[in-house]
């Protein structure tokens, strides 16, 4: 900080003080406005400045509130997310009434015998069906391998073209078979389908 002699100070430097014109008249001429005595003089003249104590307290209170909110948010986030209930596994309470229980005649021993034998026959039937399927698939794979072997013997480039992956094959979509074929010229009844499934978000 360089001290400039008061005589050489020009009037426009005085006006560059950030205080009011009143202050300019009252405070003695100072060369550089960084001098601390000017600041001390300012505090003794609280004409238009805001009360600083209230500002600090406000700022502190606001910050404290923000911190409390942040802490609460962190606690909530740390808690494990609620599991989405599986609607199918929860039996509604109205089906546990006693009047809902079906009254049927008890099974005779012949009937239960017949059931057990039928289940065993079914087991065997399904096993044979599964084996037949696996054999058919095995046969198909063998046939394909044989074809590829012969193709390789013929020409290498055709073989390479054949074993390349077919990009357009998947995704493969097909409508499954129904019980009766589609009725030509069938006009389905008018209606709107409203979806009422509950959607849960975590």
């Amino acid at each position, binding site marked *: 900080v360089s001290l400039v002699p008061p005589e050489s100070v020009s009037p426009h430097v005085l006006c560059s003080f950030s205080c009011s014109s009143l202050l300019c008249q009252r405070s003695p001429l100072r060369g550089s406005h960084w001098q601390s005595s000017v600041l001390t003089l300012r505090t003794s003249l609280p004409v238009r400045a805001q009360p600083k104590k209230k500002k600090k307290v406000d700022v502190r209170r606001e910050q404290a509130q923000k911190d409390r909110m942040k802490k609460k948010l962190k606690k909530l986030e740390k808690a494990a997310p609620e599991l989405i209930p599986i609607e199918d596994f929860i039996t509604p309470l109205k*089906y546990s009434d006693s*009047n*809902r*229980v*079906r009254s*049927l005649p008890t099974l005779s021993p012949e009937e239960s015998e017949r*059931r057990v034998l*039928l*289940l065993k*026959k*079914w087991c065997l*039937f399904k096993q044979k069906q599964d084996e037949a399927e696996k054999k*058919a*698939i095995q*046969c*198909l794979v*063998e*046939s*394909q391998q*044989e*074809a*590829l072997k*012969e*193709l390789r013997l*013929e*020409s290498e480039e*055709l073989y390479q*073209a*054949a*074993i*390349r*992956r*077919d990009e357009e*094959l998947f995704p*493969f979509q*097909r409508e499954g*078979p*129904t*019980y*009766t*074929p*589609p*009725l*030509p010229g069938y006009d389905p009844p008018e209606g709107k389908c409203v979806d009422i499934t509950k959607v849960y978000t975590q």
Partner: protein
Amino acid sequence: AAAARRPWRLFGAMCLLRLPQITQPLEKGEEEMAALMGQIELEKSCYSDHEIRKLQEEERLQRRKESLDDDDEATGKTVIMAQDLEDKWEQKFLQFKAAPRITDADKKNIRTSLNRKLDSNLMLLVKQKIGNQELWLLPQVEWQPGETLRSTAERAMATFLGDQIQAKILGNAPYGIYKYKFPRAIRTEDNVGAKVFFFKAFLQSSDFTQTEPKADYLWVTKNELGDYLKPEYLKKVNRFLLD
């Protein structure tokens, strides 16, 4: 690079399958099991709202018959009973006529139509001239250098059914091969025999009104193939047909 001339001529053939549109009928064991499953499900279930309503109304009717005096609830009011609802639903169901599972073409055994044997796979067979014989074969065409075997098979399909055919070919690789040597009369050093590579495709579109097939054609099931194909050829084709 010009490869050395191989003695075998290559052919690409297409096995076009029309997939089943209806479910196959259940076998005896399956039917018995299905009945048993239904019975067990019924035994393990509870009464539904509709059934409870029906039981209550039956009770009320019984009470009214026994007491022979009008209940104070039902004077003048027409109440729809659960039994009436059931009757109404039954009537509505009987009015609906579904398409028959066994079509006309089935009954008359018209083998050129696609509308028969809706519960099994149908394959396309065409009559082709090989050498000096007219044979029933899967549509095949000779391979030309510069194209893959898959495109040969596609070309075979297009020559017999037109360009507008929509089929999903299952992959680039052939499914089977039929190798045969020419009869001694036409066999030469360079031309020993032919290899026919089979490709499989699923038919997507089912309207053939625009395209007229160029040759005699048939749509047959796997069991009926034996009526038309030669035994050796049939053996090789049967290997890659799942049915």
